[in-house]
């Protein structure tokens, strides 16, 4: 599976309150949540983002609250993958559980700029920066997590007997 798109670039410690502010947590509707995604620090994001685009950020992406609304809003926005050197642990779980692809890669986080055209091969973990003609390798996920992602999320994994 591959993803390709334009990069939205953010810094370290992007917290779940800026991904989706608590005042919008009165809904569990992905189409409603996406209207406010990233708007606290990037008001143009909800209008500008196109299907397939990527978020590339710094360390500890998704820190703060456990709100699953954060990865739901990002996924509903059309973002194909979030790349960061490290993720906050609840966000990491939530993204995997709901099927929002994430990749850990420090080199990509440091070298990719906002607006770069980037292609990601999820099978190999290779991240291709078409704008800069560079390649970076993401950290592979443990086999258990790969299996969970392959099943399409936690509910499907549990139904298939993954917890037995």
């Amino acid at each position: 599976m591959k993803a390709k798109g334009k990069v939205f670039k953010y810094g370290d410690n992007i917290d779940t309150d800026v991904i989706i502010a608590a005042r919008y947590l009165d809904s569990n509707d992905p189409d409603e949540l996406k209207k406010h995604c990233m708007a606290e620090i990037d008001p143009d994001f909800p209008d500008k983002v196109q299907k397939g685009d990527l978020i590339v950020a710094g360390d500890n992406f998704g820190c703060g609250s456990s709100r699953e609304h954060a990865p739901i809003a990002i996924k509903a926005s059309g973002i194909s993958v979030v790349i960061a050197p490290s993720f906050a642990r609840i966000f990491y779980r939530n993204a995997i559980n709901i099927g929002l692809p994430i990749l850990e890669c420090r080199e990509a986080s440091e070298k990719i700029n906002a607006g770069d055209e980037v292609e990601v091969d999820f099978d190999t973990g290779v991240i291709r920066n078409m704008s800069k003609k560079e390649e970076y390798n993401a950290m592979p996920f443990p086999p258990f997590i790969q299996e969970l992602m392959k099943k399409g999320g936690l509910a499907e994994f549990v139904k298939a007997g993954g917890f037995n």
Partner: protein
Amino acid sequence: MKMTMTEKILAHAAGKDFVKPGELIMADVSLVLGNDITSFVAIREWPKFGKEKVFDKDRIVLTPDHFTPNKDIKAAIQCKCMREFAKKEGITNYFEVGRVGIEHALLPEKGLVTAGDVVVGADSHTCTYGALGAFSTGIGSTDMAAAMATGKLWFKVPSSIKFILHGKFRPYVSGKDLILYIIGKIGVDGALYKAMEYTGDGVSSLSMDDRFTIANMAIEAGAKNGIFPVDEKTLDYIEKHGAKEPVVYTSDEGAVYDEVYEINLEDVPSIVAYPHIPENTHDAKEGKDIKIDQVVIGSCTNGRISDLEIAAKVMEGKTVHPDVRVIVIPATQKIYKEAMERGYLSTFIDAGCVVSTPTCGPCLGGHMGILAKGERCVSTTNRNFIGRMGDKESEVYLASPATAAASAITGYITDPGTFMEGEKR
């Protein structure tokens, strides 16, 4: 093989003799928690798990505490959804408004958590129960639904950081100052994926309320859990609150830690975390030039009885600065009543504070004290991110109840120790 407390609890829950950091395990959970916001998403996901019934109706706790008492029609819909789910599934630990409190103050008070438990909650501050010698951690809504369906969840065994505490706090310094001090030292990802374990002779000087506050904010250092050894104070607390028989785990001599920090509690000053990140810590004495508009005393971090006690002591016989509004929120109904009986609520009201029913409201910018553009709040809550309590150009300064109370009187960030010294003269 040598193991830490956290590793031992997880090994037992996974039915193993030994686990090591980084290992992925499937573990039984003792308790699953959700609130009005996160349960709304979990209940939407619930049918996808294809289960007729929850795994155990007595081991799920549902607390309408965030946008309650219902702040608007949408909040009412979320709570109604949770209430109906609780009825349909026969959930015994559903706490209605009037009986509910802020979840992480409520569960220990109701005796729902004991030492050795594995608690998961769809709320990041679920790590609070580490104060009781339990493994507890925050999860998302889909995880919550999975845990409700199976009574199990997958975990990556965390490595641990050890904090050896010595001595005791100076007057008006408390658990909040210590955890802010630690976050200031190690950063908001200083304990990413890890366990923060507290040990040393200084632990015995900490009240249970201090320990709850310290464990509560483990997540603000990126940690998976915070954990305290079980001592007489813990056992006494567990017994008094009618929790089930504790299972006491202790870290082995020679267990492996990623890092070890030694802290003399008397070296910890009153700390304030400036916007917009909890690691941006300063000595409260530096805050004289920072004029404030609002003070919030409450939350799962600092809404317990000893928090209200120290705030009342600082505010006793004084009046709130004319430019400041103060919102005091006892974390549970029991704490509310006790604060009333002890006269703290009269002290707050006489000083010019508003006293609210238990709610998470203002902490996450939900309701009951939203900030306008440019406004500043000293708050005993746990996060000071951009827009956390209202407009994205408002500012939140995290502090202890004593610092918040002293600042409420002066109208600027104030060191409570210095303030009370001045009062004596």
